């Protein structure tokens, strides 16, 4: 990937956020993905989300594994540190980075191959630790960068470009996450920015591990007739079962409340996630109900999307570990080293 820096044309008209930054200030290098790749739309959504959240660009840490999807952190928030790590290992690297500095905003971008095959174990354990980060799976049902092999999220019967049908059952990241006790589980579609952006914002503000499974079609290897991860298939089957709006702290709440069921969830920073549409009998605050609903619809071939489950109360990794508030990488050495006197004293135990 050669990085042709985008000409920073000044658009006086562009709206500024609280930091006085325009959306351009959240962009990255020019994408080198295929024209029309779903991943580029997700990147656009991420850029908008950060802008609307008034995030300080350099306080963001963006991480990824290996894959076309994992290349995308290069394409947003240039002023943020990025780590394009190794295939399937981003969760552990994000865990370490967060352990060292809990004060930053962590976003991880992965693919279905990166997360559900080689990286499955690490993903599951990051969920278990409730690591405080937004984890986006750009799910296209194939290994894009290695030219189109089926991934573990490929549905039974979906056809490869050469026409072979996949026979192995899929791993549904949302169902998996729910079964592992994830505290924020959502699914969206790269083609639906209206839905995606609020979810990204909510996920970024969630305290703990926020997983968003974004169906993000691979135009080159998995967008053909017979594929269950194509734009067309996803558009047709996509049913939004709970639409969430993100309402920043102290913003006036305008969205109209939907009748009955869940209405809103308050995030730890005081902002709220407001449900303007929830399927009958569905409650995004109930893990069991969410699970039951998803498993039921897995068979139907529908693709339920939206904020599927959220629990803002569970402790995240540092709360569990009892770490100090101050980022560990900023604790002065004097506080860390007990010194020679203490050393002399403690050695009495070794006499």
């Amino acid at each position, binding site marked *: 990937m050669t990085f042709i820096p985008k000409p920073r044309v000044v658009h006086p008209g562009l709206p500024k956020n609280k930091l006085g930054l325009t959306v351009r200030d959240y962009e990255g290098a020019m994408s080198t993905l295929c024209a029309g790749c779903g991943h580029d739309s997700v990147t656009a959504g991420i850029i908008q989300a950060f802008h609307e959240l008034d995030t300080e660009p350099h306080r963001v840490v963006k991480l990824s594994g290996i894959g076309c999807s994992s290349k995308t952190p290069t394409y947003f928030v240039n002023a943020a540190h990025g780590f394009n790590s190794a295939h399937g290992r981003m969760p552990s690297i994000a865990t370490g980075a967060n352990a060292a*500095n809990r004060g930053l905003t962590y976003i991880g971008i992965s693919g279905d191959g990166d997360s559900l095959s080689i990286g499955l174990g690490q993903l599951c354990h990051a969920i278990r630790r409730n690591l405080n980060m937004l984890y986006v799976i750009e799910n296209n049902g194939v290994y894009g960068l290695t030219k189109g092999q089926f991934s573990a999220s490929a549905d039974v019967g979906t056809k490869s470009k050469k026409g072979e049908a996949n026979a192995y059952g899929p791993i549904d990241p949302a169902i998996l996450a729910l079964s592992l006790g994830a505290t924020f589980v959502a699914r969206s579609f790269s083609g639906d920015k209206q839905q995606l952006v609020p979810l990204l914002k909510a996920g970024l503000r969630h305290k703990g591990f926020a997983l968003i499974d974004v169906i993000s079609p691979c135009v080159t290897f998995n967008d053909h007739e017979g594929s269950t991860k194509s734009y067309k298939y996803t558009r047709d089957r996509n049913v939004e079962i709970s639409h969430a709006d993100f309402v920043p702290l102290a913003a006036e709440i305008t969205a109209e409340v939907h009748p009955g069921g869940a209405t809103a969830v308050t995030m730890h920073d005081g902002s709220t996630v407001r449900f303007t549409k929830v399927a009958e009998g569905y409650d995004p605050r109930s893990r069991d109900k969410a699970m039951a609903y998803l498993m039921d619809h897995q068979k139907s071939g529908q693709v339920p999307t939206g904020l599927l489950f959220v629990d803002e109360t569970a402790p995240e990794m540092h709360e569990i570990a009892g770490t100090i508030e101050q980022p*560990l990488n900023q604790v002065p050495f004097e506080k860390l080293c007990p010194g020679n006197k203490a050393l002399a004293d403690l050695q009495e135990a070794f006499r």
Partner: protein
Amino acid sequence: MEHLDTAKVDRVNDFAFKIANTNGTGSASANGLIMQAIFRMGVPVSGKNLFPSNIQGLPTWYEIRVNGDGHTARTPVYDLMVAMNAETYARDIKELRQGGYLLHDSTWPLSDAVQRPDIHLLGIPLAKMCRENFEKPREQVLMKNIMYAGALAALLDIDMKVIDGLLEEKYGAKKSMMAMNHKAIQLGYRHAKQHFQCPLPFHLKTMDGSHSTRDSILIDGNTALALGCMFAGATVAAWYPITPSTSLMDAFRGFCAAHRRDPETGKNNFCILQAEDELAAIGMVLGANWSGARAFTSTSGPGISLMGELIGLAYYAEIPAVIVDVQRTGPSTGMPTRTQQGDILTCAYASHGDTKHILLFPANPEECFTMAPKAFDLADRFQTPVFVLSDLDIGMNDWMCPRLKWDDTYRPDKGRVLSSAELSAMERFQRYSDSDADGVTSRTLPGVHPKGAYFTRGSGHNKFGKYTEIPDEYQEVVDRLTHKHKSAAKHVPAPDIRTMPGATIGIVTVGGCDQGVREGIELLAEQGIKANFMRVRGFPFGGNVEEFLRAHETIYVVEQNRDAQLRTLLVNETGIDKARLRSVLAYGGFPLSAHHVVDGVKRQLTQQMGEAL
């Protein structure tokens, strides 16, 4: 093993004994008690715990060597054998020197396995006495061990006041435990006094002065290394349990709990992560160091293999990392509770592609402590993984060593990390440019300053940190890495060199072989074979390593692996002629002892003479 026959009969503070037992019976505390008591008497002592990879019911041994001159290497021949495990009688008795003593449980008749007229039998009806004196079965099991400890006190003339003191410290609070242990000790002590002629010809005598242990401590290498990591300012530790490295992280947790809790909030100034496996553990370490914390992991062979890919990422993306490898016997799962130095090459060249790493080789707990901060300083300064290669013998056995000291003026060498001020002052930051003389470039930490942002990647990159597939741009970066690694030679600990007037032979060794080799050199000298000593302490090798090698026509490299890995590394990474380096190898899993060195060197010397003729 000739010292068997030449073993002097009447010796004070110079003998060895061995306790054969079954694991899970709590013999550890009895053995520790004796070991510590001897130590408190001021007498140099070492203990080697040979335990099985199992939790309960298999043979386990504890070897104690007492040596007034301070030789603490393992010795394979014993003056006294405490044979508490009938299953291993036959093997155990073989290890007794002529005229040695066998202490056994005479509750039952001795099996015929014992066919040595040349040794003395000391029978004590331990089981019987236990049944008579203690009710609970578990008590009977435990106290049997304390009882032979009492007998040993009488036989070896261990100061009973010291033992009482130790029991007091240990059980002072729990009166009943105190009483029970005291009773058991006395039972064993009195029985020995009554039935045997105490003390035995070889026995203890309180020591003061030069070699005395007064200013020493008794500590294992894992504990010392954990201490070193805490003092070095490590805040993040990620690990996956594996023998023999587990106790290192346990110790680190313990020290942090005691010294790293924020007084006001009671919150932790550290974060220890038990990872789901070693791949995750090293990933966490990379992430944390990348973010500017000092982070480390501890593991053993199998873990190193699993960390390979990410070690290469750290090397190429230039991320600091400290990796402690407490080596055990390989290959594969191997013998998890036996020692070896078998990961030297794996660590030196870990990961696919062209890679070279920095290695530190502690020889004892004291160096484990001092090399910990060294490892972090080197990792931060050279922005690369640093391996500390300890082993099971160093890490899990109690070693006698001088009290540890800390220089309060020490401050971490964080290497070239740009501050927010520096960044805002500069025109533009480029990750892999502005190399210094050592080939190190400056790095930045996340969240510090917008200008500091860059993209870290394990894929091909040029000196600006940008992705590249252009040969020259790629080579420019990896060539600098070669230079950077070479530059580290000046900064790793210098070799420990000890010369002897008139010596022509050189003996080179590494890590835990230190004691055995140095004792071996003394023994060889007694036999008229003079040798100079060099113990390598770090890789890449500094000039003085090569100098020493060049200075000797014949060099023996003593190490604990099958494939002569240190020798291989010396041949690869110095200009020395391979033919000069001969190997003395011991890799059966037990700590090295002097006779390995003496026998190995002498055998080859006579060979050479043969060849010479």
